[in-house]
């Protein structure tokens, strides 16, 4: 992968390698800290084993259900043309922008013991639903991952040449034939990757287990780490669990890198494909059913947040606004760090790749591996690392910004690196021949090609950070909070109305931040 013939200059080395070093410190460094602190030899108790079992089994079940629902959803979305299709596809493309805790509140409003559905079925003398525990955790994970899985599969459909559909129509291949010759081979190539990514996301999702887990029976490894640190003051236990969690994630992460194709977050999939089978009424009925079901499943909780939050949002206490300010600050700083690291690393990778292809590939793979390090593990490692020197609570917000930046890095890198490589390839020589150097070379020749991916990934990073409820729970001092944390506290004290107000504010701010950054990347330039 020779990107360019550019010489490696000191500036690239300094920025690139310090970004890389920071990443290594955050990922492998924190794991090393855990390893040194963990009582590795200590045997796992039966309750530890049941925590591991729960973590893995909920992830398998969540990933399986998400994929199973996504398959028919993607098919219907891809082939049916209806009003709102574009909107649904857009929403499906941006699942990360919705803060986890907001979605959880919505899910409780719909599926909780006193939610809409329980209320409805109580008319038929059916016991109310119990959302706490395994069911609730799986339900929330399925909610988050149906859009992701659907998006992946629609991408799979879109990658199939239209000729294959026409060929099938000509040859008179029927619906089951199409499923055999077109859909199944496509699914076979995309499903393993989707499954692994969802599996990984579910294994390391903290907020869902925190809010919907129901005691020791429904505790994930990350929740157990949180409890060891915050309730038991037991660093060795937290570190031991941290090592287990990291091993799980690392194995899955490596498998994901090996088996999955990159997600495309931004490109539109608004291609209209005609199909000449599936004209039968029963297929239409089925497609209508699945789309209605999925839309209700996804949009009802969000709608409930809007309905419940629209009035309280105007009477939120000052403390919420202070937290909102904290959150925005953390999100912006986190986004800047993330983009700064991604650009620095891309600059180095693009140059190193020419002379030392293996080194650059290693850098690339290790950077993507951050996906495998859960933010919680990084947070736990940092907590134990800095505890002897300064109170972890005094630097809650900077740490949160830093960890969130590391989490957004793989996404940013995946978008910025190819753009920079292309810019160097297409315009690098031209810039050199015109005698551009240093910053003006970057500003005039390279930056305009990076603006779009930088804007998009900065928006994504900011939104991710805005909605994060992970590291902050470990570090939050009693007198500082972020919006998701305040929302969680309100929820746990059953102030549903205030929590809904905060939820609406939080989701609006996330979308706004994303939009501002993304637009910023698109302004004033006419690049096709």
């Amino acid at each position, binding site marked *: 992968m020779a990107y360019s013939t550019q010489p490696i200059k000191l500036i690239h080395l300094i920025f690139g390698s310090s970004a890389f070093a920071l990443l290594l410190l955050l990922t492998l460094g924190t794991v090393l800290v855990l390893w040194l602190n963990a009582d590795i030899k200590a045997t796992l108790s039966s309750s530890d084993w049941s925590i591991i079992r729960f973590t893995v089994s909920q992830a398998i079940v969540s990933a399986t259900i998400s994929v199973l629902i996504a398959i028919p959803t993607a098919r219907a979305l891809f082939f049916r043309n209806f009003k709102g299709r574009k909107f649904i596809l857009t929403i499906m493309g941006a699942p990360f922008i919705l803060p986890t805790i907001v979605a959880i509140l919505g899910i409780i409003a719909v599926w909780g013991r006193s939610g809409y559905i329980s209320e409805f079925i109580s008319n038929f003398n059916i016991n109310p639903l119990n959302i706490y525990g395994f069911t609730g955790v799986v339900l929330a994970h399925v909610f988050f991952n149906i859009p992701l899985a659907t998006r992946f599969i629609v991408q799979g459909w879109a990658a199939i040449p239209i000729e294959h559909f026409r060929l099938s129509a000509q040859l008179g291949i029927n619906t089951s034939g199409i499923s055999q010759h077109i859909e199944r081979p496509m699914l076979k190539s995309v499903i393993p990757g989707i499954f692994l990514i969802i599996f990984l996301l579910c294994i390391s999702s903290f907020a869902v287990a925190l809010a919907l887990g129901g005691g020791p*029976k429904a505790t994930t490894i990350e929740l157990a780490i949180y*409890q060891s640190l915050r309730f038991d003051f037991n660093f060795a236990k937290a570190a031991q669990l941290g090592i287990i969690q990291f091993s799980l994630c690392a194995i899955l992460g490596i498998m994901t890198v090996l088996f999955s194709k990159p997600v495309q977050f931004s490109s539109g999939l608004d291609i209209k494909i005609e199909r000449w089978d599936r004209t039968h009424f029963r297929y239409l009925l089925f497609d209508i059913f699945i789309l209605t079901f999925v839309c209700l499943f996804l949009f009802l909780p969000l709608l409930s947040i809007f309905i419940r939050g629209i009035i309280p949002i105007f009477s939120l206490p000052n403390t*919420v606004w202070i937290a909102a300010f904290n959150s925005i600050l953390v999100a912006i700083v986190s986004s800047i760090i993330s983009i700064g690291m991604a650009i620095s690393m891309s600059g180095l990778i693009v140059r190193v790749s020419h002379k030392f292809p293996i080194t650059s590939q290693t850098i690339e793979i290790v950077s993507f591996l951050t996906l495998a390090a859960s933010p919680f593990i990084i947070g736990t490692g940092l907590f134990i690392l800095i505890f002897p020197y*300064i109170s*972890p609570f005094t630097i809650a917000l900077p740490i949160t910004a830093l960890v969130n930046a590391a989490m957004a890095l793989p996404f940013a890198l995946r978008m910025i690196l190819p753009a920079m490589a292309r810019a160097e390839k297409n315009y690098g020589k031209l810039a050199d021949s015109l005698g551009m150097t240093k910053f003006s070379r970057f500003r005039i020749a390279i930056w305009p090609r990076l603006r779009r991916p930088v804007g998009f990934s900065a928006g994504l990073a900011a939104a991710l950070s805005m909605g994060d409820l992970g590291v902050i729970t470990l570090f939050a001092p009693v007198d500082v*909070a972020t919006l998701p944390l305040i929302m969680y506290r309100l929820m*746990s*004290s059953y102030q549903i109305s205030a929590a809904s107000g905060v939820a609406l504010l939080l989701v609006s701010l996330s979308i706004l931040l994303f939009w501002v950054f993304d637009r910023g990347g698109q302004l004033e330039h006419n690049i096709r």
Partner: protein
Amino acid sequence: MNKFINFAAGFLLASVTTASADDLPKLTIYTYDSFVSDWGPGPAIKKAFEKTCNCELNLVGAGDGAALLSRLQLEGMRTQADIALGLDTNLTARAASTGLFANHNNSLKNLNLPIDWSDDLFIPYDWGYFAFIYDNIKVKNPPKSFQELIMMPDDFKIVIQDPRSSTPGLGLLLWVKEAYPDRAAEIWEGLAPKILTVTAGWSEAYGMFTEGEADMVLSYTTSPAYHIIAENDETKSAANFDEGHYMQIEVAAKLASSKNPVLADKFLEFMTSNDFQSIIPTTNWMYPAVLAKNGLPDGFEKLISPSKSLLIPSDKAENVRSEALSEWLTALSQ
């Protein structure tokens, strides 16, 4: 202990320090969330103490009682807290061993507790009995023992608190262990299917109960007093258990790292005074550690009295705790 809180955004945020006149010394107290809520004792206590102390009282909610101790351990000598308020006898030995707390100079002689009290570090401010609270309209035949609770129908659900973060949760753990020293694990296995969920703190659990998510919640025999007195609602009752009820004695202590030791002592003195104690029954909904001059308010006479009072001495509680905790974790994680 009033935990009838919940409902004000205020408490969360009791956290965010209000701007203060710079010249006044500030006394910071870490306590449990419900204590600082608008409905809890916090506002009245703050007002009463600030009237005499020429200082600013900063009450900070730091989770539930047990999480409070862990929080202090994590902050260590760097903590801003001058006083920790809201630990109980089940935690005092563990708390004492951290070395974070300083001796008090209170004579303790006007205390009016069901047990004798002599502790150099911790001073009690209220007490009560743990009990399960139910709605006597919905539940006609409440269980009268742990055994009966186990035998309740499948859809009868209770909410309890995590013994690692919450003092009621820990109290229940020791209640079961004290009532059934050899059969605790078995009792927990029986209770497991009845438990809707385990919350981190008392507020969460009680909120779930009042919202109708659960049939019974672990709280105090004094909890119905809140509904009777504050809401004129007699539908909430405490289930009287044949095994007896475990007692909680809530305490406070000064941190060794306090930068305002004199002011801290002054607060601890105030804590056993009539001003503080008379606020407790109708805000924290517990029995005061020193009976106020005018006695208990009307409504408290309607509360149940346990047939037998259980309490593991604080020096033994820590050992019992670790064994009982692993039994609990094992039973509930299956």
